[in-house]
């Protein structure tokens, strides 16, 4: 039995390849995700191991704020240089170096624009004589206060050379000019470590510019004396310094730093696995369809097996063995392809991250296990239904020429209705927010069930819809034949179309949600913000670009300007909890621009000890006007503020509005946004150039009108949308494979018919057109289902998010039209190979064929 199955399997190579390909692609995504995150994870480990090489123990002051999960490194606060002397007296210390090393030093390149690293830190450090890690490549280290040295990657990116006068933007100081005296690299010939850029100043300059205070450091690097273990030294130093300092070994530091990035990676991994799930769902449809067709075509063979004594169970076994073989082969290929894809993505990622040195490619066991698990389980599960159907073939079918009878669709429709209803119910539960901690799982299961339910309902609607669609092509004989063929097997057409539906529905749904969000934000911003000009920059790293605080005052003094609100933001600990806070240069101006009217207290310029709260924030903190709240910022000591006003939520730029004095202790004590309201009748074009002049020393920010600003703010949604579309394109590619597969098998099945048509005079081109129409009808049907289901899902989510401020429902009609058009094109492309095959059929052979 097994031998017979494997033999017939080999005889069906094409079918095997096509249906296997869907599994291969899905498995590829799974293993690729694991290989990518594993490779990047080990690369990060290596980077930090390198960065902390030669550091036995490091001392830093305790950060003022607890470290957040997603925000990367916290500012290590400065401490007096005297601590260095204290550390030196601890026995076991061989060498102690006071070091300044903080992010926020941005070189201005030769084109006048600040060089960005797109994520990795832009460090400013003090030169203390170098280490084994640093190799000076050109020039020398900084000796005078107006001299700097930069790493080679930064010099290349900024197109600067030794001897140039260069500007540097700083977080805690205004722009400074320096002479570039040296360019360095890192051991091993690297231009950068993990994409980070680094500028070396002399120690006093670094202290002033990077820490904001003379005679301070923010870390001390220790090497232990011979025979003293770093752990031992760490404990001794910690004991000597007491509370207020964090003492860690180099190993700990590198592990901590890598762990932070790996947290982000595992999130990334989950997203990739999510898309793998979508691909596999589509793949399941495809395999189910393929096996159904295979069983239909093997009816006689299977009936013969039954007739000569095989049991129903053996028949099921023979189908499932085929599934296992395909699943295994596909898993192997998918794993191999995934390793390639993972390596490629890691390489691309490395290039984007400024030449990240990748650790060697590795295949973690989880990639292997999940590949085989997923590949096998999906294939076997998808083959189960067709296998059961195969077992019901009566032995008599071997003797008769039975066309597979058209079973009624009642059962499948009923179960479709039940599953769809269950999916809708779960969706409603998840979206209503009543599912508690399981909200995401509930929603995802709801979406999955909705897809399966709709797929089950599809055969019922396929007949009328396909007839209607096909009507468009019925003016020609091949068109009409194609239409009839696509309506011939509603189940097969339905599953093929449903596979395409999944990808298109997800893209449409996401587009509806993001477009609606965008429109709601833009609409609200337009409605609320009464400012004609905006000063802001595009955020490319963990912190938004900023400009000098004086710009706000100078802008307010320009003729034609009615009000200017400068805004700062940061994370802070407010009443013991991490919260996002804003500071405004002038709350009165904010009030004018946002139309803020207090529901309690008054909206006026805040005194240095006053705070304004939004209504929800006041409720959460349980505070009313006159109450006090305490806040700790990135720097300095805790402050206490009195609540001066409570304002409706969307009438303030943030939930907690602090006076401008508090911004001095923020991570970035500079405004990132200024809104400029003009006096009535003042043309924008008159003020804009003057504002541009004011920010010419801050090349990271620009002056835009309100529409431009809103577009800039909502632009991130477009990027997100594009990324999601690219990833979902894979699901659509798999669906296209499904269409090709269905058509190819149909062509095979109808060989005799095609021969007859050719015999009575159908031309080759007409034959191809017939197949193409069939494909186009199926794929457009799938796309129509997709945009319908997708906009339904999207609208449901938007409806659920009404309370979160997404008040506008935007249905992307042109996008949906585009999808349907693209689907027609997909149909044409998918039909190419089957159509050629059909046109090449040997007429005589086909007629003689039994």
């Amino acid at each position, binding site marked *: 039995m097994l031998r017979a199955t494997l033999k017939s399997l080999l005889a069906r190579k094409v079918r095997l390849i096509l249906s296997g390909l869907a599994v291969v692609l899905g498995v590829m995504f799974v293993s690729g995700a694991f290989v990518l995150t594993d490779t990047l994870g080990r690369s990060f480990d290596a980077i930090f191991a390198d960065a902390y090489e030669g550091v036995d123990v490091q001392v830093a002051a305790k950060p003022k704020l607890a470290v957040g999960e997603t925000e990367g490194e916290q500012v290590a606060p400065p401490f007096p240089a005297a601590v260095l002397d204290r550390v030196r007296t601890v026995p076991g210390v061989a060498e102690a170096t006071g070091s300044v090393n903080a992010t926020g030093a941005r070189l201005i390149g030769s084109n006048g624009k600040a060089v960005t690293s797109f994520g990795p830190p832009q460090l400013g450090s003090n030169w203390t004589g170098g280490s084994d890690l640093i190799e000076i490549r050109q020039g020398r280290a900084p000796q005078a206060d107006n001299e700097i040295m930069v790493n080679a990657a930064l010099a290349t990116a900024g197109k600067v050379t030794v001897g140039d006068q260069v500007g540097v933007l700083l977080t805690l100081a205004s722009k400074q000019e320096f002479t570039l005296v040296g360019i360095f690299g890192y051991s091993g010939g690297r231009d950068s470590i993990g994409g980070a850029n680094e500028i070396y100043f002399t120690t006093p300059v670094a202290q002033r510019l990077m820490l904001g205070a003379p005679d301070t450091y923010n870390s001390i690097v220790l090497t232990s004396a011979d025979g003293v273990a770093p752990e031992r030294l760490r404990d001794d130093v910690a004991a000597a310094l007491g509370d207020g300092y964090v003492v860690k070994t180099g190993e700990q530091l590198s592990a901590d730093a890598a762990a932070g990035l790996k947290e982000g990676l595992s999130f990334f991994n989950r997203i990739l696995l999510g898309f793998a799930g979508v691909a596999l769902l589509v793949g399941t449809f495809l395999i189910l369809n393929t096996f159904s067709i295979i069983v239909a075509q093997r009816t006689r063979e299977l009936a013969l097996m039954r007739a000569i004594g095989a049991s129903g169970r053996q028949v099921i076994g023979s189908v499932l063995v085929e599934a296992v073989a395909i699943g295994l082969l596909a898993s192997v290929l998918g794993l191999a392809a995934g390793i390639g894809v993972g390596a490629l993505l890691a390489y691309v990622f490395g290039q984007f991250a400024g030449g990240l040195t990748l650790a060697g490619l590795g295949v973690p066991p989880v990639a292997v296990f999940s590949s085989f698990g997923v590949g096998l389980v999906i294939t076997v599960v998808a083959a189960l239904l067709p296998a059961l159907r195969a077992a019901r073939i009566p032995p008599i079918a071997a003797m008769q020429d039975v066309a597979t009878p058209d079973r009624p669709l009642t059962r499948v429709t009923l179960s479709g209705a039940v599953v769809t209803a269950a999916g809708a119910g779960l969706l409603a539960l998840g979206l209503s927010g009543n599912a508690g901690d399981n909200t995401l799982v509930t929603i995802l299961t709801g979406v999955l069930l909705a897809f399966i339910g709709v797929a089950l309902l599809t055969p019922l609607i396929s007949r009328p819809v396909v007839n209607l669609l096909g009507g468009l092509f019925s003016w020609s*004989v091949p068109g009409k034949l194609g239409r009839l063929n696509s309506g011939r097997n509603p189940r097969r057409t339905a599953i093929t179309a449903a596979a395409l539906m999944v990808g298109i529905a997800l893209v449409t749904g996401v587009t509806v949600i993001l477009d609606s969000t965008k429109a709601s934000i833009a609409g609200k911003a337009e409605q609320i913000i009464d400012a004609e000009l905006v000063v802001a920059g595009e955020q490319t790293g963990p912190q938004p670009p900023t400009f000098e605080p004086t710009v706000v005052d100078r802008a307010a003094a320009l003729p034609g300007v009615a009000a200017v609100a400068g805004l700062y933001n940061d994370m802070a600990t407010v009443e013991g909890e991490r919260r996002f806070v804003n500071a405004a240069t002038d709350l009165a101006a904010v009030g004018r621009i946002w139309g803020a009217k207090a529901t309690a207290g008054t909206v006026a310029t805040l005194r240095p000890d006053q705070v304004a709260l939004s209504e929800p924030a006041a409720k959460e903190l349980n505070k009313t006007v006159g109450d006090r709240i305490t806040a700790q910022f990135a720097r300095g000591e805790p402050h206490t503020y009195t609540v001066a006003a409570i304002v409706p939520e969307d009438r303030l730029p943030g939930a907690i509005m602090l006076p401008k004095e508090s911004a001095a202790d923020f991570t970035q004590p500079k405004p990132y946004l200024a809104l400029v309201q003009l006096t009535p009748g003042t043309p924008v074009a008159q003020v804009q150039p003057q504002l541009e002049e004011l920010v010419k020393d801050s090349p990271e920010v620009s002056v835009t009108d309100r529409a431009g600003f809103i577009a800039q703010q909502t632009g991130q949604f477009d990027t997100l949308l594009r990324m999601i579309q690219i990833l979902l394109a894979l699901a659509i590619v798999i669906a296209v494979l499904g269409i090709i597969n269905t058509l190819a098998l149909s062509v095979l099945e109808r060989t*005799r018919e095609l021969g007859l048509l050719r015999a009575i005079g159908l*031309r080759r081109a007409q034959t191809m057109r017939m197949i193409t129409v069939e494909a186009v009808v199926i794929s457009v049907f799938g796309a129509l289902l997709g945009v319908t289901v997708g906009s339904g899902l999207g609208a449901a989510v938007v409806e659920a998010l009404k309370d979160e401020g997404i008040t506008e429902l935007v249905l992307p009609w042109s996008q949906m039209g585009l999808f349907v058009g693209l689907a027609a094109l997909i149909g044409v492309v998918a039909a190419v190979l089957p159509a050629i095959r059909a046109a090449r059929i040997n007429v005589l052979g086909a007629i003689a064929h039994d």
Partner: protein
Amino acid sequence: MTATVGRPVGAAARASDVWKVYGSGEAQVVALRGVSAEFERGRFTAIMGPSGSGKSTLMHCLAGLDTVTRGTVMIGDTKVTGLGDAGLTRLRRDQVGFIFQQFNLLPTLSAKENILLPLAIAGRKPDPAWYDTVIDTVGLRDRLDHRPNQLSGGQQQRVACARALVSRPQVIFADEPTGNLDSRSGAEVLGFLRNSVRQHGQTIVMVTHDPTAAAYADRVVFLADGQIVSELIEPTADTVLDTMKKLDTLPAPTEAGI
């Protein structure tokens, strides 16, 4: 509309010294060995012979479904030998009608649509009077909207006959058209074919191994081992049977190379 029997007005199809060789070397099979034959217009010719004698091969070569190894085939004034796929397709569409043993019809189309399919493919309109005549002769008027799977085998073959007739081809080729039918349905179909020759002057070439079927024809050509070995005009079932018996006792022709 009335052409008389036995008054040949030139050949509708002609084979001249046709050879057909399948395969090469050890596996070589010579299916036709220099067959020359004319099939006159307005005549019903049957090709007979034992199984494997080359009947189907000859028909396929005549109809432009297969290429000949040597020799020439003409349909009317068209030289079939040497035509490319496009030319052969046009020939089959415009000049030739087919009736196969089974699987003649497209399951997705109704009887009427099947009948009109060759004309639709060619983009031609049926002549309404002729269409009516054909439908009435095959007696299918009340079955026109049925799908093939709703028709009996005999009805299906009658639909196939109507389809072959409706475009008035130069010649209709039928390969064992009654091979799958019971004798009554077979007789109906054969009678219908003979009528279309007698009353409407259609040319038909039919392959069969059934003497009773051959008796419906005006002329029978006998094939054995790829060669024409005998011929009967105005056959009856008995004369056909006799001829076949005689042929069986003949020694097999000697192997001839090509």
